[in-house]
Every structure is written in structure tokens, then in C-alpha cells.
């Protein structure tokens, strides 16, 4: 992603000169941001009925003639070579059509690594099944195709492999010894210093300085990774579960030496993405096997295979040092550390990002390193960096408040910056102080006793904690929207974007209906297919803004086209685009209720069935000019059993400041989902990576503990709903922020309950005994 953002930046520097003035950030705000009709309404998901009826067909359910099912074999060593592989028994097993190994796999180029160009999607740059070498414990070493999944899995179990083991780096401690500083962290400098933080810390009246540790976490979306793949001549069609269809198509095309247009990726339904549903080996292996076998292939990863083939959040070790002046302002803020990574991926886990933007401090030092291990490529997982970075930073803030004997909310009020503390740019919109105040009131923060271990109910110690949540605003370049308006007054907005359950299709239909002044039932949103105009990744909580900006651009093409069609016999005759607005299912002159014509009327008079406008969003210059972030104040009440150390969250409230909320129902679900995932991060989830073998030892939902219903308390969600004047629709991202700050809010509440400060996640009961 670093190079992606670099590319975006250099493209933007050119674009500053070329784009018309009206799209320079801040020149005009999106008029939609002040509309209160459909926008913000709790509209139920348009795909909801299909899903509850089982009619939404996911990637693993697409029907196809002559389908072969894929079974996988994973390596059991971390590094070395396949010395011998015996596929005879598998080939002879019932129903087996093909066994593919490095010996017979088609020759394929290595996938272009995500971030090396805007169209690169590879989670790793390693070649896939091209030679005998093993790079991580779990790498796919054979694919079996059979008539049924059961036959494929059984045959896969018959393959015998002998390895030549080579020394592997599978210990974080060992890798840390030769940690390196990456060129950049997602386009931002890996190290940044304002003033002299070391000196500032040394001279500070009060200092907290600690190491915080976070473990590996794995993606566990309910829907397993799956693809149904068919070659039609030299066209490759992948029915995928994907959150970046365009880049997947381009990258797969590169792997097979095809042109981009020869690969089509279709992904209308995704059962959870969170950063994990990108391009991994399985789509490429499935396409290779389909090519070799000459028949369509379905490849569905088992839960274990998801753990072996799809990376997750990597382990981090972070130092946060805070030096405070007597008045509670910060003399120094230091956030440094190291994350485990590989040499073949590009996900350095940006845990220092929050510290770059959250607090005013006289001296700031942030620096990140990566430690290379022989392991599966780690990847983006809901608020990569910010989730675990806020655990460290916001725990440290709580420790500082304790040391200063001031309320943690008051501490944050005192260090609220006027402008971005590291970039020096203005904030586009920042209301975290207000979010804290409202959250504190709703949560009953005033009832918190700052003295730890002072509230008890029988065996249970009760505590409250809070923490700041933050996630950057991103809008990625390249999104192109097409609006098709027909003579019945129906509009279809189309873009190869993604709906993974967040509510994208619903919210975009709402926004488009509002923009076109059409009833919601007249508007639909088409997505999830590379045959549509290109979209951007459903990542970085960017999609709503990215789509929104393209729809604005397309709308700006649509209006003059409609005026031209309206001609001289229309009440709109002679008006320029700047003089009209969408109103009551048509266009009308601004400030003149009489001057109006419906879309249907315009089109029928012109003898047209439809009018189509397509445009690409302008470059996201607002990201350059302003410091743009979503914020929240997270509040947690926890009960810790004094006998057993069991910690159970009893209440949670998130008070969000994310610009305009476009759909109060789907937004609340996004926030709650993020918070629940944060409870897992804080208390129960941990990938057990055996450092002797580099092998993940708990690849199942029985042993990898995501929160169950009983672990999730009532969660209250409130928001400021203050529009961001510099984003489409006034909205900033909401998909990832929910998980941020949760780890610290829980840890801080546990401290308040027990007097025990836990600086290593997850906070399991043994740490509290």
C-alpha cells in the first residue's frame, strides 16, 4: 500500500494543476451533507431479504456444469524444499481428475505485490507453486481436483511428501535482533521527530514509559474464502469473495500473461471481509488447476486452510513514553516499536499512526521497524496498526492520567491539538472533545471511582475505562461511477465496488436517490463485477467516500447531458448546469419552484429510453490539504472475578465523530461489529504460532476464541453527526474505527476494577490472578 499511496500522491501533485477549481478541496462542500431526508435514515439493507431467504448466491454456491472441487495440501515445515512428493495414491483415489504440484502447474508469473501499483493485489510477491521451495509452514504444496469435495479432501490426505528442511527464522525475538526500518509505512515516513523527544522526556515532571505487546490475530470471517473459476477460451471468470475485484483481475491477468480485460471477477456477496478477502494463493491455484484440467473449479478453503493461507494481524512490541508538564500538557510523546513481517509482503502494521495525529506535544518521536520471519504474509485486518497502536497509546494515556491524578478525559482535553501535531495541517473536522463529553454523560462516567478496586459486587470487581479511537479518512483514486437514468425515472448507479455486509449498496442507493431527488425504490446500485466501471478497494474505510466522489462526478456529467436533451421546449430551456438542481424526480431551477421538468419527461420528449453519464472521481486532494480522521470516545465497564480472574465486559458505549452518518442502522452495526471484534482483540483472541516450527497451532473456531454471544454486552452507539465539509456527503469512514481504542478501553477498565495494569494482549485470566 505504501507505493499505492506514493503513486496516488505523485498523481495528485499533477492533478492539482489540472483539475478545475471547483474540486479543489474546500472550495465547495457537497450540498448533500446538509440534506436530512433519506440520508441518515435507518434503511434496512437492500440485500437483507435475499440473504435471510438463502437466495443470495455466494462464491462457493455459484452453479456450474462439470465443476471439479479442489482439495489442498499444506506444507508442514517453515522453510526448505520438497525432496520427494508421491501423488500416486491420490491420483488413483476415487473421483480424482488431477493432482497439481509444482511439477505440473502451469508456468505463472509471481503476483504483483499489493501497493506496488494501483492495480496490484498480491498479498505476497512469492511465486505460487513454481518450484520445490517452501517459504512458510502451511504453504500449499498440492491441489487435488475431484468430483466432490470429500473425494478431493480424502485424496489430498494420501499425498506423501518428504522435505529437506532448511533453517528458518520463526522466533520474533531472533528476528527482532535484525529488525529493519522500512522505506515507508503506507506512504508515511517510518520515523518522524518533532523537536527532541528524548530531551523532552528527560526534563518532564511526570513520566510513564512502558512496553506493550500484542499477539497475532487471524481473520475469521464467517464465510470461508472461496472462488468458483471457469476459463471460457482465453477469458478467465472468477466468482470470488473479494473486497478488491479490479486489482484482483489485473493481478491475476499478470500472473497468467493475459490482458486485464480477459479476466473478470464477480463478487456480489461477501460474508465478511475485514481486509482478509483480497488476493491470496487460492484464486490463482484454482485458476491454474482449472486451466490444467480444462474444466471449471470450485476452491473453498477449510477453516484450517484459512489460517494456513490467509494472513492476519501481526505481532507487535511497542514502547510508549509520555512526559507531562505539571499542568498536564505533554512535553514528550514517544511511540516506537517493531512488528513481525516477511520479506515478501508489504504490511508493516502502522501502529504509530494514531500518535502522529491525536495529541499536542512539545516533542514527538515516532518510529517503526519490522522484523522478518519465515511465515505466512501478514495482512490488513480491520484497522491494521490503529487497532493495536491505540491499545498501547491509550493505555499509556490512562497510566499518565493516573500518575497525574487527573481524570483521563480531562487529560485528553488538555492535550487536544489545534492543528495536526506532525503535519501541521488543519483538521477538516474534529469533535473528539465533544464526543467524549457526550459519551461520558450517556455512560455515567461521573460514577466512576478513580481509585482502583473500589467497586465490588460479590466476587466481581467492577471498573470503568475509556480510550480514544481514531482512524484516518482515505479516499482512493480511480473510482469511476456510471449513472443510467431511464425514461421511467429509474436510476442505476454502477461501479465495481464491494458489499461485504457493511451496507454499501444500501447507503449508496440512499445517497444517489437523494442526489438525483428520486424515491429510494427508483434507485439501485450495481457493484461487485469488473465488467462495471472500475471501483477501488473496500479497504481503509474508504469505499463510501470513494464511490461518493465518483457519483458526484458522474452527476456533474449527467446534468448538462439532461439539459441538452431537454432542449428549447423545456421549462429548463436556456439554463446552465450551475443554475439547476435535482428536485422532485427531475431538474429544477435553483430558487424557482415553478421551473422544473422530470427526468421522465425530458427523456420521453427527446425520444430517449435512457441517458448515461460516466465519470471518474477527481484526485483525493482533500487528504493532502487537511488532516482528516474519524474519531470516537470508547467507554467500557468490566467485571473481573476476584477469585478466578475472569474478565467480562458488562457495558460498552462508543461515542463517534465520523462526519455525517448516512444510514443510522447500517452505521450502528458497523460500529458495534468493530467494537465486538475489539473485545476479541482485548480479551480472547490469539493465534498460537509455535515458534519452534513456525506453525499455527489453533486453526479452528474451537481453539481460536472469537467472542461468543455471552461475551458481548449491550453496546450503546451515539454519534456527533457533524458533517465533514471536505468529504463527499460530509461523511468519513466508519468501517474500521470501531475496533480502535477498544483494547485500551478494556485494559483501562480492568485496571480501574483490579489495580492491575496489563500491557500484553489478550488479557486472559491468568494475567489477572
Amino acid at each position: 500500500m505504501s507505493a499505492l499511496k506514493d503513486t496516488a500522491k505523485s498523481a495528485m501533485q499533477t492533478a492539482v494543476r489540472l483539475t478545475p477549481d471547483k474540486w479543489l478541496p474546500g472550495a465547495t462542500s457537497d450540498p448533500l451533507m446538509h440534506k436530512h431526508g433519506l440520508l441518515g435514515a435507518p434503511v434496512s439493507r437492500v440485500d437483507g431479504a435475499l440473504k435471510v431467504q438463502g437466495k443470495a448466491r455466494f462464491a462457493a454456491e455459484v452453479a456450474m456444469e462439470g465443476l471439479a472441487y479442489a482439495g489442498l495440501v499444506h506444507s508442514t515445515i517453515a522453510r526448505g524444499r520438497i525432496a520427494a512428493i508421491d501423488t500416486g495414491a491420490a491420483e488413483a483415489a476415487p473421483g480424482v481428475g488431477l493432482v497439481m504440484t509444482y511439477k505440473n502447474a502451469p508456468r505463472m508469473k509471481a503476483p504483483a505485490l499489493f501497493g506496488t501499483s494501483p492495480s496490484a493485489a498480491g498479498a505476497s510477491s512469492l511465486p505460487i507453486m513454481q518450484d520445490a521451495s517452501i517459504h512458510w509452514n502451511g504453504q500449499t504444496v498440492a491441489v487435488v481436483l475431484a468430483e466432490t469435495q470429500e473425494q478431493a479432501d480424502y485424496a489430498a490426505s494420501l499425498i506423501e511428501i518428504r522435505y529437506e528442511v532448511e533453517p528458518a527464522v520463526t522466533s520474533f525475538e531472533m528476528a527482532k535482533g535484525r529488525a529493519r526500518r522500512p522505506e515507508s509505512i503506507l506512504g508515511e515516513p517510518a520515523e518522524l521527530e518533532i523537536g527532541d523527544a528524548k530531551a523532552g522526556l528527560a526534563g518532564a515532571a511526570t513520566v510513564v514509559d512502558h512496553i506493550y505487546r500484542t499477539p497475532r490475530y487471524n481473520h475469521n470471517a464467517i464465510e470461508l474464502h472461496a472462488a468458483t473459476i471457469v476459463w471460457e477460451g482465453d477469458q478467465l471468470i472468477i466468482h470470488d469473495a473479494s473486497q478488491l475485484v479490479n486489482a484482483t483481475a489485473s493481478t491475476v491477468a499478470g500472473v497468467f500473461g493475459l490482458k486485464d480485460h480477459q479476466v473478470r471477477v464477480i463478487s456480489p456477496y461477501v460474508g465478511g471481509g475485514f481486509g482478509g478477502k483480497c488476493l491470496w494463493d487460492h484464486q490463482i491455484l484454482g485458476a491454474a488447476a482449472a486451466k490444467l484440467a480444462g474444466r471449471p473449479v470450485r476452491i473453498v478453503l477449510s477453516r484450517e486452510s484459512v489460517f494456513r493461507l490467509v494472513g492476519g494481524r501481526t505481532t507487535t512490541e511497542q514502547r510508549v513514553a509520555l512526559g507531562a508538564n505539571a499542568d498536564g500538557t505533554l512535553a514528550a510523546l514517544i511511540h516506537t516499536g517493531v512488528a513481525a513481517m516477511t520479506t515478501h509482503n508489504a504490511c508493516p502494521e502502522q501502529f504509530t499512526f494514531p500518535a502522529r495525529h491525536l495529541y499536542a506535544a512539545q516533542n514527538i518521536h515516532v518510529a517503526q521497524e519490522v522484523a522478518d520471519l519465515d511465515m505466512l504474509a501478514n495482512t490488513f485486518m480491520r484497522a491494521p496498526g490503529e487497532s493495536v497502536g491505540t491499545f498501547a497509546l491509550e493505555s499509556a494515556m490512562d497510566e499518565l492520567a493516573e500518575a497525574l491524578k487527573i481524570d483521563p478525559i480531562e487529560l485528553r482535553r488538555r492535550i487536544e491539538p489545534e492543528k495536526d501535531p506532525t503535519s501541521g495541517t488543519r483538521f477538516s473536522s474534529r469533535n473528539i472533545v465533544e464526543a467524549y463529553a457526550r459519551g461520558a454523560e450517556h455512560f455515567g462516567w461521573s460514577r466512576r471511582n478513580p481509585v482502583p478496586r473500589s467497586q465490588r459486587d460479590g466476587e466481581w470487581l467492577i471498573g470503568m475505562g475509556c480510550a480514544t479511537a481514531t482512524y484516518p479518512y482515505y479516499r482512493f483514486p480511480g473510482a469511476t461511477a456510471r449513472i443510467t437514468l431511464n425514461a421511467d425515472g429509474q436510476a442505476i448507479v454502477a461501479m465495481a465496488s464491494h458489499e461485504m455486509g457493511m451496507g454499501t449498496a444500501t447507503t449508496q442507493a440512499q445517497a444517489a436517490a437523494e442526489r438525483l431527488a428520486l424515491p429510494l425504490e427508483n434507485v439501485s446500485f450495481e457493484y461487485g463485477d469488473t465488467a462495471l466501471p472500475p471501483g477501488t478497494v473496500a479497504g481503509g474505510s474508504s469505499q463510501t467516500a470513494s464511490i461518493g466522489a465518483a457519483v458526484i462526478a458522474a452527476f456533474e456529467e449527467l446534468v448538462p447531458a439532461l439539459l441538452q436533451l431537454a432542449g428549447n421546449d423545456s421549462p429548463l430551456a436556456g439554463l446552465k448546469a450551475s443554475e439547476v438542481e435535482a428536485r422532485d424526480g427531475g431538474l429544477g431551477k435553483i430558487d424557482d419552484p415553478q421551473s422544473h421538468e422530470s427526468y421522465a419527461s425530458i427523456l420521453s420528449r427527446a425520444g430517449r429510453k435512457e441517458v448515461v453519464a460516466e465519470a471518474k472521481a477527481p484526485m483525493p486532494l482533500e487528504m493532502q490539504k487537511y488532516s482528516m480522521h474519524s474519531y470516537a470516545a470508547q467507554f467500557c465497564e468490566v467485571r473481573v472475578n476476584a477469585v478466578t480472574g475472569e474478565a467480562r465486559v458488562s457495558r460498552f458505549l462508543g461515542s463517534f465523530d465520523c462526519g455525517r452518518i448516512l444510514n443510522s442502522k447500517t452505521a450502528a452495526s458497523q460500529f458495534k461489529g468493530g467494537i465486538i471484534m475489539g473485545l476479541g482483540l482485548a480479551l480472547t483472541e490469539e493465534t498460537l504460532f509455535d515458534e519452534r516450527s513456525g506453525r499455527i497451532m489453533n486453526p479452528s473456531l474451537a481453539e481460536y476464541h472469537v467472542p461468543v454471544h455471552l461475551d458481548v454486552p449491550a453496546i450503546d452507539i451515539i454519534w456527533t453527526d457533524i458533517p465533514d465539509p471536505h468529504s463527499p456527503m460530509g461523511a468519513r469512514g466508519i468501517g474500521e474505527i470501531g475496533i480502535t481504542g477498544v483494547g485500551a478501553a478494556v485494559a483501562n477498565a480492568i485496571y480501574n476494577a483490579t489495580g492491575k495494569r496489563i500491557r500484553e494482549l489478550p488479557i486472559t485470566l491468568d494475567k489477572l490472578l
Partner: protein
Amino acid sequence: MKPFTYERARDPNEALRLVGTDGGAKYLGGGTNLVDLMRERIEAPERLVDVTRLSTEIEGKPDGGLVIGAAATNTALAAHRAIREQYPMLARAVLAGASAQIRNMATVGGNVLQRTRCIYFYDEASRCNKREPGAGCDALDGFNRMHAILGASSACIATHPSDMCVALVALDAVVHTLGVEGERSIPLVDLHRLPAGRPDIETELKPGELITKIELPPPLTKRSTYRKVRDRASYAFALVSVAAEVDVTNGKVRDARLALGGVATKPWRAWKAEEALRGQAATEPSFRAAAEAELVEAAGLRHNEFKIELAKRTLVAVLCELAGVAT
């Protein structure tokens, strides 16, 4: 999974005949553990003999005890009125395990024979003496947070995962079986073996021997309970669990039956704690002394050392609760 044949037995004798003694067949109860292990390729039977149509009855005995058919589901067991009233610890233990869906399928006989959840046992790439005698044990120096502090050996430290069995061993349950040599009965506490050098041999059952029913003597008292300590609020195996039944008369412990789960290689009857309690004042210090006595031989490893103190604390808390002693 490996292809296999499936047959359903109409009666215990037919089941016995169908399974035979060659080791190639397994009895199938609810399948919630066995089928899982077959998918994971840890178990690979050639034949499955479904015994879920055999006795599912739960009947009272003239002496006030109870007989439970081996094919009774966990759900039926936990919901049975006599169980809830006379043996509350058993109902609570069953409900503390698995999920409602799994309990609906799982049988009592199958629960007794469920196998460990040791993550190295489950992983084909790891060494495990239970799967492959003599291979070695990767749990000893690996992730052993879930593992045993009691009854372990240098060959195996895997815990027995059942909640139900912990209550049953506390209640002096007796297992009735049918084998090629006829019927016999075995106290449940003697059914599971300590691993010693052969962790692959898990019970005293002979090849083909079928559990037909489980018999409970009358309860000591209705004051019994089961407490499970785990990493999440539901659907997690026990780190420590305690099944306890205590008869306190005039401030003294007249008798107690105690068992521990999550800490041992088999459902662990806490004989030493019981012995230490009998005749003592029902006070927290005596409970603590009993807990110390039980865990005197407990041995912790790198990640599970905490279980020793956790087990003591949980045992004391449960005894205090049952005796009505404030903590």
C-alpha cells in the same frame, strides 16, 4: 475423511457383533467428537456402528439413584427433572459444556469417551504419543496453557475435556458395559487411565466393549454444584472446573464428594481434599487446607502453572458457596 461403512444397531448385542474386536470399527453416538476427529484424520475407522437408537432412557431406581441410558443426549440429561433436582451439579456440568446444538446431538456414552482437545494431538504435523506411541510429545515444551497439572507423565500432558464426566466421577457413577465376555460394571473413576507411558490407551474398555448405561447412586445431598472457569463466557473448554457436593451438619463437614476438571489427564476425583475435609469445621481455612492437600502433587509447566492456584481458589470458592460461608 477416509471412506467408511455405516450400520445402525438395533440392540446392544447386534452392536457388539457389528463392531467386532478387530479394531477397525467404532461405535457412533452423536458424532460430535468422532466425526470431527475423522475429518481431521486423527480417527480413521473402516466401519461405524450407530448406537444412538439404543437405550436413551433415564430412570429412577428404588434406592433413590438413577440409571441413564448411554444413548441419552446431553440435552435430555441436563433437562431431566430428577437430575436437576437431585444432582444439580450434573445438570450444570452438562450445560457448561459445548453449545446447545452439540448437546442436542452428543450422547452420554460418547461424552465419556470423548478425546482430548490437545492442539498437538489434533495436528498431524506435530509429535503426539497419543496418536503415535513413542513419537514424542510436542506439548511438553509447546503451548501447554490448557494442559494437565495432575496425572500427567513425560509422555502426555493432555487433559480430558469433558465437563459431564467431572460431575459423574464426583457422584460415584458406575459405567455398565457389554463386551464379548458379557456384562460388567466399572466405577467411572476407574474407567479412564492415567497416561503413564501409554497415553494412546485411554480407558479400561476392551476391544468392542460397549457402554450401555450409567448408574448413579443416591446423592449425598442436594447441595451440589459445578463451576467452570474458562477463557470466554461460553463455548470454551475448562481451564479449571470443580464439581462439589458437601454435607455440612452443625458447622462441620460430615462428608463431601469433589472432582476437578480441566486440570488432569482424566476426570479427577479429589480424594485427598475430601479426606482433609471430613469432620473439619466448615470454614474457609479448612477449605483452603483441603485444596492445598489435593494439589500438593500438582506440577505446572511453562504456560499452565497458574492452574495450580486457580484450582485451589475455585475449589475454596465453591466450598464456601455450598457451605454458606462468606468469603
